[in-house]
């Protein structure tokens, strides 16, 4: 008999989540009030039914900016001050600069990251360096109160934002986000939150530029995934096919290779005589191959113990023959080699190479990437299947292909990228420690913006196409989030974004201020019609070429902050 560690009533988590949200909400800064009289004056009511959508609107996208802007916007969380200039100094031509930058980024250990490391140290997180066994002992076995129990989750969440904001290993951080979404786990769970450090550090970060087959096994054996998709309970007498199905559909071959419930021998074959995809029989065979892959979390059973580690419990393993994809796993095998044989077949299947390559192209280039680019990625995946840096080579093949810098505006930033790129471009000084109230506020507002970390409830990860993020909800809530940034002050009343201090003393006219900050935040000018609106806002009717009393007039200072909020809320800020 198994006794689920998860309490029977999962609504407890819902209640706890809501309590946490309520706490974050209470600690969030109050918003300034907004009168309704302005809109109530209208005699004609607004209507969402009346907006024209000319066909041309969907053909129009902006011209691509310089390669450095594309690289730093799409292969990271946006440029920090000075980074675009540093990119330009890397070489004589755009392809040369891009190659040098990408090769450096794909070797993150070579990049000095002392600022992020110092800030991490200053945040005094206690769980990030603990082993899985120690995490399990301290936060599960010791059974501390909820806020302590979930500390590894809270600290991973904050450390991820800190690294996104301050790490110079930007492509690595972006790919960590990609792989977290690829192998998505809803982490704010009773049995997952306490060990989330392990998944982030030892499973995702350890393999984000590594080998897919190695990462696949690390995920399969991770306690978080064993719990999230129930393989922990998968046994010969009680098969559970939740993980067995999703590992095929979401993690490897992809749903395009799913042939439904037809008999296995009716799946069409490729040129090498391999089945082109999988059917429900393969799902069952996959789950059976992984029976007994479970974890030590049953203190009442000496066969299991209670260390939180993965192990194979042989009495649970299904030792009958399994016919899976193009392999036959013979009867009588042990649990570990049988499961590994299934993972070998998954990782080696051509559909896996195509699926992973397409997802990476969608993330790094365009929602609908060109087939040639997908093929280039898939070829690299297959060619380097045995390499320890296989995934770095796949990324390199995609982003150094000639197509890469020709794509622009066929994706828009998602909320995480919106928030981090705003904070990066303005050199925000943010403290992510657990007792920082501004971080609580940031997390609460990020939750409303639509993409809180590790919180997508389904196993497929946040959507990565623009259609999901251009509806009214994400738009307004992300405006709301970024407009707030310029007003946040720390306990000593210093602005987290020192916008005044970063404005050079000679930049004082409305036009100069707009030009300076648009270039700083976007790495380029806006189209003239849009940049003019920024200038006019800053000028407020005064000749835009006259110097404003920025150093002495608090209203002008707050207008500068509002102007920067306006740039964060502009359409140009969203293209990528």
């Amino acid at each position: 008999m198994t006794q689920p560690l998860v309490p029977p009533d999962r609504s407890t988590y819902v209640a706890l989540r809501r309590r946490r949200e309520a706490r974050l909400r209470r600690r969030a800064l109050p918003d300034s009030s907004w009168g309704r009289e302005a809109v109530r004056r209208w005699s004609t009511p607004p209507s969402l039914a009346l907006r024209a959508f000319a066909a041309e609107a969907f053909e129009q996208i902006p011209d691509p900016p310089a390669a450095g802007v594309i690289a730093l916007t799409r292969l990271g969380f946006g440029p920090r001050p000075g980074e675009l200039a540093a990119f330009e100094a890397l070489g004589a031509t755009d392809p040369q600069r891009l190659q040098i930058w990408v090769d450096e980024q794909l070797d993150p250990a070579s990049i000095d990251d002392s600022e992020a490391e110092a800030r991490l140290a200053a945040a005094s997180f206690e769980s990030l360096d603990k082993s899985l066994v120690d995490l399990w002992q301290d936060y599960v076995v010791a059974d501390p109160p909820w806020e302590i129990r979930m500390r590894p989750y809270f600290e991973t969440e904050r450390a991820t934002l800190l690294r996104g904001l301050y790490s110079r290993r930007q492509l690595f951080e972006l790919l960590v986000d990609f792989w977290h979404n690829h192998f998505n786990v809803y982490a704010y769970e009773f049995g997952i939150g306490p060990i989330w450090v392990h998944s982030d550090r030892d499973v995702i970060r350890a393999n984000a530029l590594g080998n897919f087959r190695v990462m696949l096994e690390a995920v399969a054996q991770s306690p978080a995934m064993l719990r999230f998709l129930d393989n922990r309970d998968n046994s010969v007498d009680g098969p559970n096919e939740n993980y067995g199905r999703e590992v095929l559909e979401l993690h490897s071959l992809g749903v395009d290779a799913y042939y439904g419930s037809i008999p296995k021998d009716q799946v069409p074959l490729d040129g090498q005589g391999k089945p082109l995809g999988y059917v429900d029989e393969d799902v069952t065979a996959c789950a059976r191959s992984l029976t007994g892959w479970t974890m030590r979390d049953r203190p009442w059973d000496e066969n299991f113990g209670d260390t939180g580690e993965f192990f194979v419990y042989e009495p649970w393993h299904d030792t009958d023959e399994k016919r899976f994809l193009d392999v036959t796993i013979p009867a009588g095998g042990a649990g570990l080699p049988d499961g590994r044989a299934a993972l070998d077949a998954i990782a080696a299947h051509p559909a896996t190479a195509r699926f992973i390559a397409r997802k990476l192209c969608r993330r790094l280039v365009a929602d609908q990437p060109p087939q040639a680019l997908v093929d280039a990625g898939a070829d690299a995946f297959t060619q380097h299947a045995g390499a320890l840096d296989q995934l770095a080579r796949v990324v390199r093949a995609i982003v150094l292909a000639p197509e890469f810098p020709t794509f622009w505006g066929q994706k828009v930033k998602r909320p995480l990228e919106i928030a981090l790129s705003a904070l990066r471009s303005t050199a925000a000084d943010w403290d992510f420690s657990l007792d920082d109230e501004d971080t609580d506020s940031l997390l609460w507002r990020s939750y409303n913006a639509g993409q809180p970390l590790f919180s997508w409830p389904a196993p497929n990860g946040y959507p990565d196409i623009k259609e999901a993020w251009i509806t009214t909800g994400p738009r307004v809530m992300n405006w709301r989030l970024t407009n707030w940034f310029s007003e946040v002050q720390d306990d000593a009343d210093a602005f987290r974004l020192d916008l005044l201090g970063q404005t050079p003393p000679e930049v004082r006219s409305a036009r100069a201020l707009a030009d300076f900050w648009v270039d700083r935040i976007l790495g380029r000018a806006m189209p003239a019609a849009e940049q003019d609106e920024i200038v006019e806002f800053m000028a407020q009717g005064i000749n835009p070429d006259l110097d404003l009393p920025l150093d002495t007039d608090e209203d002008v200072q707050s207008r500068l902050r509002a102007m920067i909020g306006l740039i964060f809320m502009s359409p140009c800020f969203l293209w990528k």
Partner: protein
Amino acid sequence: MCELTRRGFLVGCSAGVAAMAGARFNTVAFAQGGGGENDEILVVIFLRGGMDGLHVVMPIDGVDRGFYEAARPTLQIPVTGPGAALPLDAQFGLHPSAGPLFDLFQNGNLSIVQAMGLTEVNRSHFDAMQQVERGLQSSSGAPSGWLARHLASASNLPPEMIVPSLAVGGLQPTSLLSSLETLNLSDPGQFNINTGPWLWRHPQRTALRRLWGADSTFLHTTGLQAMDAMDIIELYVDDDYTPANGAVYPQSDFGDHLQILAQMTKLDLGLQVATLDVGGWDTHAGQGQGSGGYFASLIEDLASGLGAFYLDLDGSGSANFTSRLTVVVHSEFGRELRENSDSGTEHGYGNLMMVLSGNAIGGLHGTWPGLAPGQLVDGTDVAVTNDFRRILSEVLIRRLANPQLGLIFPGYGDYQPLGIVQGEDLPPIYGDQPLFEDGFETGDTSRWSTSVG
């Protein structure tokens, strides 16, 4: 046949052709009705994860009760004693935590249709959801949701609609994919940008509107739409809302979202369709013990929410919204008859759908396929005896008076009403119809003025 209109809307195309056009940003333009008068409100609630219909409505007598009890030693709902099923008829009972649904059923406002689903088995959550929400037999093809295509094809919408479509929640669901007239929000109280410097909030808003109006890309257009949405919430939606008739919503996201929907419904903003999502139904483990446990809390939330929502809208005179209201509740698939060893259930096939309406022909509907081994699909699952599109089509035709089934459900051609709601049976229109015959295709944009501001 494949038709690519100048809106980039694909009708009846193969996946290959759709992929060729994929670099475009595909959308469905909104067919403003102009002269119509339809004031029906359709609410579609999607239960994400594969809701276990056999744990909501289960056999309480007959031979199927025996199969049910044998297959579900832990999960079975008893027939007598504490936690007993609420009898719907002599053969079927309702989960005891679904009391408010039982009351609606007794009052004739709830139709429960059994053994509904896709025409072919698909045990992938994401693929099945795509098929259901795009209204297709494959998960690729039309780059729009079925509700979006209903709005685009309805010829009887009223001349003035301020919020024709509402998606309550963080993101807009696939059923409204490419519907750009939809207001998507999760909390009206937060739906504004009043977080910047107080002194400049009005100039900032003026500038924002001008900034987003400076070009006409899809991004600019959706941004202006978001500003309009913000204006509408500010103009019409009060922070305080008191439900009518003493209705009490559950303390949950679902309860909060239903309450927002009720409030927006009562504002008479021309609401035509609305969507809500409820997650948490993928119960591979820990589903419960008999009548109690995790699933019981899910169904209690669902039932008490729907009960409160119906009561709140069930006024008299101009407050009688239930006479215009149809709520459809469905999921991507059902679950296996047999429970697994973890007090859970695996992905299955046939499932129930629910329709709650002041015009419901209440009762149990559909053809029950039986639970005997020979009656199960693949030996494990409740069979599907009716295409899910049959229910949606009946609601479209009898309530919304939109017979454009060929556009809304491409490839679906044999609709017959099941008799779950009252209404007139218009002859369905099949085939690939040019979608925009209302002058929009001629480029007459005068009817699409941007009159706001």
